[in-house]
């Protein structure tokens, strides 16, 4: 079983040596996940074309930006998620007539940009907690966070789909985040 650190190694091999072997290894691991993300978030409604586009764009971005990857700032999985999310939003915006002047990279700080105030010890502690805690979440909490993060559902849409009041969805998410110790930096979030 490979550990997430191996993916960081691959990214560094791409950055340092433009290693195609490392790229192929990353591709075989992440491409199915990115496509799964594209599918669960509804990009495949009109066939596989947009999903394949998302896979290709994310992977070429990984190649192009590999030298910006900093394992002290984020794990490879986190980094891949942020890149795939940004490209997904841009891809969807490109399907509409009216686009804004700014694109996703202006709207989301990427983990490699300075000053996100966290270091590796903190990052990996956060990630370890999440990995340990996520399997122990009650199924109904696991279900809503999956919907919100990967299925392109707003809290309201998740509530409609599960036939629950919005407040219930919100409180399930908050309970889950509290257990995973995620997103609670601002005091007074309860």
């Amino acid at each position: 079983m490979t550990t997430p650190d191996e993916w960081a190694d691959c990214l560094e091999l791409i950055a340092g040596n433009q290693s195609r072997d490392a790229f192929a290894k990353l591709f075989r691991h992440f491409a199915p996940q990115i496509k799964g993300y594209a599918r669960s978030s509804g990009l495949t409604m009109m066939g596989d074309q947009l999903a394949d586009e998302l896979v290709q764009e994310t992977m070429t971005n990984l190649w192009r930006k590999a030298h910006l990857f900093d394992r002290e700032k984020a794990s490879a999985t986190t980094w891949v998620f942020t890149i795939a999310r940004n490209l997904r939003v841009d891809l969807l915006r490109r399907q509409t007539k009216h686009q804004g002047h700014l694109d996703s990279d202006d709207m989301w700080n990427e983990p490699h940009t300075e000053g996100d105030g966290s270091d590796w010890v903190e990052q990996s502690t956060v990630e370890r907690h999440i990995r340990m805690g996520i399997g122990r979440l009650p199924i109904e909490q696991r279900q809503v966070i999956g919907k919100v993060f990967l299925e392109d559902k707003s809290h309201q849409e998740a509530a409609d789909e599960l036939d629950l009041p919005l407040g219930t969805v919100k409180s399930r998410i908050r309970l889950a985040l509290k257990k995973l110790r995620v997103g609670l930096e601002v005091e007074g979030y309860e």
Partner: protein
Amino acid sequence: MSKFHPELDVLTEYVAGQLNYHETLMVAVHISYCEACRKSARELETLAGVLLDDLPGDHVDEQLLAKTLAMIDNQPERQSRAVSGAASFAHPEVPPPLRKAIPNGFNALKWKKLLPHLQVCDLEVSPDGPAITLHRIKPGGRIPKHTHRGTEYTVLLKGGFSDMYGDYNAGDYLCRDAAHEHTPVAADNEECICLTAVEEPLRMTSWKWRWLNPFLS
């Protein structure tokens, strides 16, 4: 350090890529001032990465790898750190998400005078509807009393203002709906600049200012 933040569910939707254009921009600008929300967002991204990791992968054709490798051969020069970093930007008072829209600083923008102490500048119209505007208020300037028919998003970029609900400083994020009637007043010592998006036109409640309605929509 900011005192007024987006709610946790808004931050969650921001990280998940759920918010519409102007809301995303508002949160992004707040985050560029607020270390706590920046950390929270990073943690939420870590969670999303773990969820992505747990997702049953979809079948991907080997051909797509071959095609992608071919694309890589045609890649333009790689981005350098200097280009992607914003460290050399000459107008540090403009937060990073707005640097493309305000490349030469606040003073170089075309401001429209609405009142002796109030100027506005339209940055762009969000693809999702509302205009995204800057308001600039002279020190001590007062905005006429108004409510909001829809939701009003504000992030303070510079200076401070107060209303009956509190005192706000650079970076603070406010989301106001129709239930809030207020009369914002800029702090005395400094001009105040804020970024605003209103999902529906403002409705002035003070009869003296009814004539302003067409300008504030």
